[in-house]
Structures are given as structure tokens and as C-alpha cells.
């Protein structure tokens, strides 16, 4: 069992990050080195400045807000939540002064962010069970949502235990020790991380996150990088 835990928490993390970074970079380079389309692909009327409207379209999803307002609410919640949780994870490595503009304990959102994200993911998943989105969906779409839900739920449980129920066996300092070890290529697993009652949550959280990162460059998740240039094409 220890070997499995070690594998998930150390080598698999390295593999997953390597595939994520290299895979994403290689795929993006390949796409951006293709020849440009010879004609404009714009939709009119034009609005200036085009780059500002491109940012607007990319980050505020105006077309979703207009045509599927409910989906828009959850999409905004999800994407903003995701950004804040990424910040939260960075803070597990070290303190960043800039993130403490709003003073907070790690993580942001007192545990509610994870809850909101989990609810948003369930909404995304369940709306795929109903026609016509059901007819459009392919297995990839479900796998990604289920994977994200599992990541969020196990990650949040750890946060909830600490924040809401005063669970103290796994503290922020333990995570920092583990993560900095990984970062400095000197992996070290503190006892609290491997042997406390909630270790299984961490192992599962990291395991599913690894799977997600491994799949990321080859999946529709690439929309995170491609949405901006595509929206630019539409704006002209």
C-alpha cells in the first residue's frame, strides 16, 4: 500500500506535470505553426477596439449569458472558482504577498469555494443527461466532468475538515513540506500526509488530479488556451 501511495504522490505527479506542460506546449506549437486561414473569419458588425471585445467575449461568455443564462451563472462560478483555487494551491507552496491583498487563511473562500465548484460540476454533468445536450455529448465530456468532480470533492473534504470541523492532524505546513519537496526535486512525505486519518483523501485528490493533467493536452480542455485566439478570429 505504501508503494501505491508513494507512486501516486511522487512519481505520478512528476509524470502528470511533465505530460501536461510538454504535451500542452507541443500541441499548441503545432497548432499555431499551421498556415493562417487566407480569408477573414469575422462576424459583423464590427466593434472597436477589437482586442477589448475579444477579451470580453473570451472571459465573460456574453453569448452564453444571452442564450443560456442559468448555464452562464454556473460557468462563471466554476471558472472564477477554479482561478481562486489555483491561487489557493500556489499558496500551499509558499506565501505570496500579492494574494493577501484580501487577508485570508489558506484556502480562499472558507471552504465554500469547493462546495460551489462541486455544485457547478454536478450541474454541468446533469445537464448532459438531458436531450439535446445528451445527444451532443461524447464520453470525454462525462469523464472530464466526473474527474473534476472527484478532484474537487476529495480536495474540498480536506479543506472542510480543517476549516469547519477543526481537524488538525494535516496542517497547511504539512502540505507545504510535501509540495516544496516535490518542487525542489527532493520529495519528502511527512507522516501527517501519509499516515493520518485523512491521508486517503489527499491520495485520491492527487490521483484524480494526475489523471486530469495527463488527459488535459489531448482533450477539449485545451479550450482554456484556444478560446482567446478563436474569439479574436470572430472579432476580426
Amino acid at each position, binding site marked *: 500500500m505504501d508503494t501505491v501511495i508513494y507512486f501516486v504522490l511522487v512519481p505520478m505527479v512528476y509524470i502528470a506535470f511533465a505530460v501536461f506542460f510538454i504535451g500542452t506546449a507541443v500541441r499548441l506549437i503545432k497548432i499555431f505553426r499551421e498556415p493562417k486561414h487566407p480569408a477573414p473569419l469575422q462576424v*459583423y458588425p464590427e466593434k472597436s477596439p477589437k482586442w477589448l471585445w475579444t477579451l470580453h467575449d473570451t472571459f465573460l461568455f456574453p453569448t452564453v449569458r444571452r442564450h443560456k443564462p442559468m448555464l452562464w451563472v454556473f460557468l462563471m462560478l466554476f471558472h472564477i472558482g477554479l482561478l481562486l483555487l489555483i491561487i489557493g494551491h500556489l499558496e500551499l507552496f509558499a506565501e505570496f504577498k500579492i494574494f493577501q491583498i484580501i487577508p485570508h487563511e489558506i484556502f480562499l473562500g472558507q471552504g465554500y469555494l469547493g462546495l460551489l465548484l462541486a455544485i457547478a460540476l454536478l450541474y454541468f454533468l446533469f445537464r448532459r443527461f438531458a436531450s439535446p*445536450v445528451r445527444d*451532443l455529448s461524447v464520453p470525454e465530456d462525462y469523464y472530464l466532468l466526473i474527474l473534476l468532480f472527484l478532484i474537487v470533492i476529495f480536495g474540498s473534504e480536506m479543506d472542510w475538515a480543517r476549516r469547519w470541523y477543526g481537524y488538525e492532524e494535516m496542517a497547511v505546513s504539512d502540505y507545504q513540506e510535501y509540495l516544496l519537496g516535490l518542487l525542489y526535486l527532493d520529495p519528502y512525505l511527512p507522516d501527517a500526509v501519509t499516515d493520518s486519518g485523512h491521508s486517503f483523501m489527499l491520495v485520491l485528490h492527487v490521483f484524480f488530479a494526475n489523471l486530469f493533467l495527463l488527459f488535459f493536452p489531448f482533450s477539449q480542455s485545451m*479550450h482554456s488556451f484556444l478560446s482567446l485566439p478563436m474569439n479574436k478570429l470572430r472579432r476580426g
Partner: protein
Amino acid sequence: MDQKTRDDLLDLFQSKLNEAMRFYLETCTRCGVCTEACHVYASMGQVRYIAAYRAEIVRRLYKKYFKGRGKFWPSVGEAKELTEMAVVELFDAAYSCTGCRRCMVYCPFGIDTQMIMSIAKLLLIGANAEPEILSMLADTSVEKGKSLDLFKEGFLDGIKRLEEEVVAKWQLEAGEQAISVDKEGADLLYVALAGAHSIIPAAAIFNAAGENWTLSFFEAVNFGAFVGDPSKTKLILDRIVNEARRLKVKEVCICECGTAFRVMKQLTGKQPFGVVSITEVHARYLREGRIKLDRSKLKGAVTYHDPCQIARNAGVMDEPRFILQHLTDDFREMTPEPKYNWCCGGGGGLVALGEETLDFRMKSSRIKADQVKETGATILATACENCHTQLSNLNDHYKMEMRVEFLSSMVADALVR
């Protein structure tokens, strides 16, 4: 399907993979926001007509043959082999899509379904499964470009016969020519369609505005674009480009034909001449006071159908409304935002296929008929040949009891000195 055919088809697929196409094929999250965008889905309610579903027909082949996943884990994206059955599905997707790009307005990423369908159309050509009539029409156009001399005389004779009707609409001074052809140093080269209705009103308006213009030997319509054949599209286009360069014109003016205008405007590249639609030219004449229109001639409320390739896809939206202000006091918009206008259902070569597609065209455009009826107008104006034909068919089929008119004809009929 044998291996050789499949490889050839995949080479054609590969030839379409540029940066934008990769974006469009990689990105869809199948969120379903485009569901209500397609007029075919809105009218018929079948899932296969949702933009994302159409695109997925092509995307499944992409996932099979152009992504590593296709070898290791095809089922994750429902990747699909290129078979005879797949070709049938490609036909269904491509020739029920009019390329109006209304779905592009809905998509959070701006995926261009028309462009994805261009892969389907090219594969159909490769598999000899495209609508033959479109290929034949494209070939005829290409042929005409190669051997103009054979057509020249007949064309000039035909034009001569039209001159009288042009003069009937707008009287000329003695010695002036009603329709000039092949005139070097003209300011404007007008590219019409084969048909008097595309030439007579336009000629009368040019003459009324005192334009130094000449008529192209070639018809504007690009069947190469309808059938999705890039090389024929280019050959058909080049005929006009070469003529414009030879005559040293400043401007090429495309008649009321959406595809012709968009292809000419967006695919000619950098040239010594500009490209304008006839609607833009008429608006310019009005703005400059070169023509005057009598607003009292038109009786009844007017509405305007924005041809997708001219409005949403090429940006000519304000000009027709400006012209209509000079034609009527009772103009009624179909939709608050022209970019959301429903497609008439005739684009992408469907009208050119005539009777063959009539039943589908009528069923798939019920939503358009409803939109037009809601305006309560009695005159339905538009500025595209295909739209005009399709709207006239809808007018009969749905008993709308309207008059479907070309905007240019309305301008010509209202000309005053």
C-alpha cells in the same frame, strides 16, 4: 471503402487543416449553446441539425485520423472510421447546412460551422458523392473563363437586346450607351448574374448616377464555393480578377449575390481595385446626391431580409436600411439585431439544386417564414439572388401573400430626375 480511396480522402482532409480549422476542430465542449441557432433545427427539431452535431460528424473523423487519441483510445471521443456510411452522414450534414454562420454568433468560442462543413464538402467531391449539378455548373463557369471568345458574340447580342429596356427605365442623352461592355478605363466593373433582372435595373441606376461603368463578361455566382471546391472557386474568381486588372477599373461591384460578394471581397487578396456590393454603391449614390428616389412610389409596409453572406458575414448592414429610408416611410425590422437574422434556408448551394431540395428547403425554413410574417409587411426586400428565390418559394409555400423584391429593382423603379 478501399484503402486507396480512404487515403486520398484523408489527404483532402489534411489539405484543409490550417490554424483556424485546428482551433475549430479541437475546441468544442459540446455545451449546447448553439442548439437554438440553426434554422433547420429550429424548424424541424432534429438533433442532427444542431451545429455542434453537424461539426461532430467531421470532428469524429478528425479524432480518428489526425489525433494520437484515435489510435489509443478512439472511444473517448467517439472517433469514427471513414466508411461509405460516414460519407452519407457527411452529405447529410453538409447539404443541410446553408453556411449562414448564425451558430457562430451563439458559440462561446466562435466556432465556424461553415468552415468545418467545407471539409465535408471537399471529402464528398473526393468520393464523387457531391451534388453533380453543382460540379457541372462550376465546370461550365471555369470553361467560360478559358474560352471567352466562344461566348463573346452571343453575350454581346444578348446585351444589345436588353438596352432598350434599360433606356425605358432611365432615358439617356443621344449618343450615350445604355450598357457598355469591355470598356478599358471604366471606374467600375459590374459583375451581374446571367439574367436580365440582374442587369437592367442596375444599368439604369448606374446611368442615372452618371457612373463610368462597364459590364463584366462573366456571371458573379461562384458554384465552386457552393460545392466546396477550393481550386474551382479560385479559377472562377480569377476570371473576374483578371478582367478587372485588364480593364484597369478602380472598383469591382458585385450584383445581388451573397456568395459571389463574400468570395470576391474576402478571397481576392491585395488587388489594385476595391470590391463593393451593389447595395453599398446605391447607398453611396444616395449619400452623394447622384440619384434621387421618389418615396411615394412604393405602397405598403416593407421589411428587409439580410442575406447572411452580405450582412453577418461581410458587414453590409447599414446600407440597405439607409436605402430603404429613401424608399418608404413604413420600414419594419425583422429582428432588433441583423446579425441574429434567420437564414432564408437557401444558401450553401441548396437553391441552386432547385426542385431536388425544395421540400427540405420549405420544411427547414418555417422559422424564417414565421419571422417574415410577424413583421406584417407586404413587401419583402432582399439583396441576394438565392435569398430571393428561396423567399419567393417560401412565400408560395406558406401563403404569405407578400411581394418579394430585389432592393436594386426597387431603387430602379423609384428613380426620379
